[in-house]
């Protein structure tokens, strides 16, 4: 396992885009964590006399229709995006790994049943499903996290199931079974650590899509509710003033783009670094 990690880092470092992604993510984290210190203004403070001002030294990214500083609002918005991303994906990974492990380990009718369920869930357009359920349950950050988590575990479960199906046939598993080791122990201590590699990849990519979903929900009014700032709802408010105040549209979108991009780059970089077939060219 140790040498695996070493070779992994060696190949990872070579993928510049992935390293770039990781760096951007770390920066974003830093910014989000230090939002309180970095924000020049209180994001909720309205000052109508300063409404709809273009970017300037005073207001780096301009102001919105209530005179609030966009830069500060976006700093606080980053916290929302990142936390929704991570918690939602945490939930989705948890469910996905559980379902995939059970299906892959026990096989037969449990596998068929679970996979039928997965196939059925995959038919639903996830964004619409999320929208409908969040609308039903009421748009709070917690609800959003849970709903996204509960509707996006299917891909992970497939990966994990595939890994379990193959790892179950391996010698070390057969040996453990022959020794009478309890099922749950085999699953968690023996097979799971080996099956986790693709899960990291999916998890990273899922954070990217979770952030996009949250932005979309906020944009439609079912995400973070104003006056709390989210990149998505700043964009919504900017809709009305699109032709007069372009900064309300451009900056939040750019922020979403860069953050999501960095997670995607990291995820793809992880995938390439973990795939032995993609190495060895000069």
């Amino acid at each position, binding site marked *: 396992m140790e040498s695996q990690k070493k070779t992994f880092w060696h190949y990872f470092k070579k993928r510049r885009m992935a390293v770039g992604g990781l760096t951007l993510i770390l920066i974003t984290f830093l910014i989000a964590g230090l939002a309180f210190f970095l924000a020049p203004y209180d994001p909720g403070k309205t000052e109508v006399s300063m409404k709809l001002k273009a970017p300037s030294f005073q207001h780096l990214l301009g102001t919105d229709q209530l005179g609030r500083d966009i830069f500060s609002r976006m700093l606080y918005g980053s916290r929302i995006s990142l936390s929704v991303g991570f918690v939602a994906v945490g939930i989705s990974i948890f469910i996905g790994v559980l379902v995939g492990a059970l299906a892959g380990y026990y096989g037969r009718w449990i596998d068929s049943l679970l996979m039928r369920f997965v196939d059925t869930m995959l*038919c*639903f357009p996830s964004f619409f499903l999320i929208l409908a359920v969040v*609308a*039903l349950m009421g748009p709070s950050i917690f609800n959003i996290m849970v709903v996204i988590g509960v509707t996006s575990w299917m891909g992970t479960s497939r990966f994990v199931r595939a890994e379990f199906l193959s790892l179950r046939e391996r010698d070390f598993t057969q040996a453990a079974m022959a020794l009478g080791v309890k099922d749950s122990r085999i699953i968690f201590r023996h097979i799971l650590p080996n099956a986790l590699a693709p899960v990291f990849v999916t998890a990273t990519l899922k954070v990217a899509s979770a952030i996009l979903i949250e932005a979309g929900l906020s944009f439609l009014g079912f995400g973070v509710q104003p006056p709390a700032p989210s990149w998505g709802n700043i*964009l919504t408010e900017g809709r009305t003033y*699109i032709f007069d105040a372009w900064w309300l549209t451009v900056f939040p979108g750019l922020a*979403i783009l860069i953050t999501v*991009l960095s997670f995607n780059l990291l995820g*793809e970089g992880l995938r390439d670094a973990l795939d032995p077939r993609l190495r060895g060219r000069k």
Partner: protein
Amino acid sequence: MVSFFLKKLFQLFVTLIGISIISWVVITQAPGSPIALTMDPKVSPVIIEQMMKNYDLDKPIYQQYYLWLKKLFTGKLYSFKDGRTVMEKISERIWNTLLLNLVATIIIFSLAIPLGIFSAKRQYSFLDNLGTFGAYLGISAPGFWLAYLLILGTVELFGYPVLGMRSFVTEDFTTTEIVMDRIWHLMLPSIILAIGGIAGLSRYTRSSMLEVVRQDYVRTAKAKGLSEETVYYKHALRNALLPIITIFGFLIPDLIGGSIIMETVFAWPGIGRLSYQAVLARDYPVVMTILTISAVLTLIGNFIADILYGIADPRIRYQ
């Protein structure tokens, strides 16, 4: 081949039933749903009574589900918002959405596949890396943002209206101008809708090509003296394209989901916009029905894709 088809058909029906059950469960049983509302003492008795009637809440659960299905098929499900039947509202708009998605799909396939093939041929070249980075941008950019940028840009540049299916001032236009106007209105949302798909599919095509090119039979083709082009575009490509047929099935739910935002942004009168308005108005029958229909469309799309794959791959066609 026949057994393959029958097996897929059977799976189709099972999943159909699963879809209807899940749709119904999600909308009626989730917290905040009509059932929870009836328990809420703050809600007026008149509304509660309407709910009970609409949802047959006084009957046992399985009967509720069955009655819902029955109403769905006989077109007797009524919208909360304006009392018309759900089916009526949907059938007015569904063709618009299908048109939009069809155009988007055509755009996706006709751009992404050549892009992917080209990238694979020049692996690691500057253009390939550029294409890869572009693809990442495509899947990372929020659709509504791109839509607004596009709107901003085209209106500033051309000064021509972009929203809706047609412009309001078209009464005096000639037929050609009307057609061009329609096409203009159709292209913009389709293109934005297609961006994510183009990015994803081009990468998938690229990796499929790269994998196929390493296969033994490609080496055999070269050893026969076939030219680079023949080896690449005849022997490799046909094998690389096979799995792409199945991708078609995966595109559908994303397109439908993306339609909600696109139709709202561009004021396109389709079921995406309808579903958003229904969600805003808490019009549950409409929401449930559209949810089910979308899932069914996806299911059918996947089914067709699987069958097409079975026909295209000789290993399945001839057992």
